[in-house]
């Protein structure tokens, strides 16, 4: 090999190395551990107690077969995208306590369905408690919790809390929104297995099947201001609101 070629090859190697360094730094690698932990269903946030109205949908015979189940989950994802993604977006873009509080108040007025409003507050509170304990490198989480917990002025709704934590952990808003859609899908699918609608393997197959639809929804509804938040699946909302009328129930919502 000529000296020129050798030098050229060495240059290429150097470029590749620095490109690699720019793409994934040690900080990014560490962030992945935090990210995966936040999205892991083992995180004790009580998500398993909520079925996104699936239990009511089954009892009211809106979901009687596997096609119904798939359709229902897609509707839930669409409603999550149109109604809640703007809150995740804004909270992750402006992860400060003042902005979060405004979003929390707005969402309190927007979640007019009592069942989903309570579920949102319950999950958000649990998530904040867990995050404040885990991410000690972000003292503002504990401070915010201590400030607002006693006063009763905040409801700690799930979507803004999730967005805030993502933002404070350094995730970009696109990832944060995609992650929110992911955990929503994760929890409904999990509820489906516990309602005996589908087995664990079938659930995993279904989850992967719907992933491209969930991505479509994410792309469609992401990066919007909260003024545009709206619900797109009225039937899902009505059925969800019926959870309190169930004769026997496994889930809180």
């Amino acid at each position: 090999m000529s000296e020129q070629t050798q030098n050229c090859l060495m240059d290429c190697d150097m470029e590749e190395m620095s490109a690699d360094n720019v793409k994934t730094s040690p900080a990014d690698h560490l962030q992945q551990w935090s990210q995966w932990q936040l999205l892991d269903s083992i995180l004790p946030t009580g998500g398993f107690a909520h079925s996104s109205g699936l239990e009511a949908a089954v009892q009211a015979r809106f979901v009687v077969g596997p096609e119904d189940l798939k359709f229902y989950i897609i509707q839930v994802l669409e409603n999550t995208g149109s109604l809640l993604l703007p809150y995740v977006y804004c909270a992750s873009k402006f992860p400060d306590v003042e902005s979060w509080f405004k979003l929390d108040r707005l969402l309190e007025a927007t979640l007019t369905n009592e069942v989903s409003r309570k579920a949102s507050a319950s999950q958000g509170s649990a998530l904040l408690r867990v995050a404040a304990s885990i991410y000690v490198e972000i003292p503002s989480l504990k401070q915010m919790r201590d400030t607002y917990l006693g006063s009763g002025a905040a409801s700690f709704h799930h979507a803004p809390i999730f967005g805030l934590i993502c933002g404070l952990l350094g995730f970009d808003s696109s990832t944060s929104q995609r992650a929110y859609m992911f955990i929503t899908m994760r929890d409904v699918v999990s509820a489906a297995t516990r309602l005996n609608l589908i087995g664990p393997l079938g659930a995993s197959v279904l989850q992967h099947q719907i992933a491209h639809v969930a991505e479509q929804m994410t792309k469609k509804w992401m990066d919007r201001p909260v003024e545009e938040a709206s619900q797109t699946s009225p039937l899902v909302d009505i059925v969800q609101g019926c959870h309190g009328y169930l004769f026997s129930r496994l889930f809180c919502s």
Partner: protein
Amino acid sequence: MSGKGGERGERKMETGIAAVEKVGGRSTVTRCFSKYPLKLIVPNKVGSSKTDAVWIYTLSYGGGIVSGDRISLSIGVGDGCTAAVTTQASTKVYKSVDSKCSEQVLEARIGRNALLAVIPDPVTCFSTARYSQKQVFRVFSDSNLVIVDWITSGRHESGEKWEFELYRSTNQIFLEEDQPLFLDSVLLEQASTCSIAERMQEYHVIAMVIILGPMLKHVQNQVQDEVKKMMSRHFRVPTPTAGHYMRSESQSGPTRPALVASCSAFGPQAIGVVVRIAAVTTESVYMFLRHHLATLEPFLGVIPYG
């Protein structure tokens, strides 16, 4: 009052303005203005003369909303007054031309111890129509409000079922000027993933009823109890065991309710209640409204939707 620059400017913006105030101790329409495409009609007497209430009818020229129409209505209900705003027939929204969207905006201010009932017939959007509606209500903690907001699937006799392109309805209630109390927006748009008809399944009507305020507490309680009783009947059947979910077509079993509703309280001290309904027939919703709003008769002079 007329002819001044500011007034003229305001009139250019609004297609309709109505003000209700106490005159001689009785609720009276002290101001009523409307221009094309909106017409406001205030009949001399609706219902019992003992009742202190005014009724305002909104009409559109040509019997419907044409593509590109913009209608804005501003209503003020003074302290202690009672007013009802309604329609003569369902609001038809005609097909969109050049993808234009039609729009209706209502802004209402309700005074202390006052009552406003917005109780129209449903909106019916024709095939390809694009329609947006926004209603903003500003209330005090002792104001009272009844809002019925509903839509049918279209001209279902002609086979039109949820064939419009876009429907958006926004209802917002603010307490003491700027505290958000109720912010709701429903968006129905034809989408590639799922058409509106697929989303609505066999239901042809969706409706929302808001009942707010201390004067209407008994109405709220009654609605909550009755919706719960009505819906609980459909959930009495205990859930089947594993594997029996996937029923075949031939198996008979209970079907979905023809009218499904859920009721939620909202606001500080549960100051309001919202009922959301989906139904197969328009008539069943008229019956529901007649039944649950009957207790408004002493306030309004007649039973709404009677």
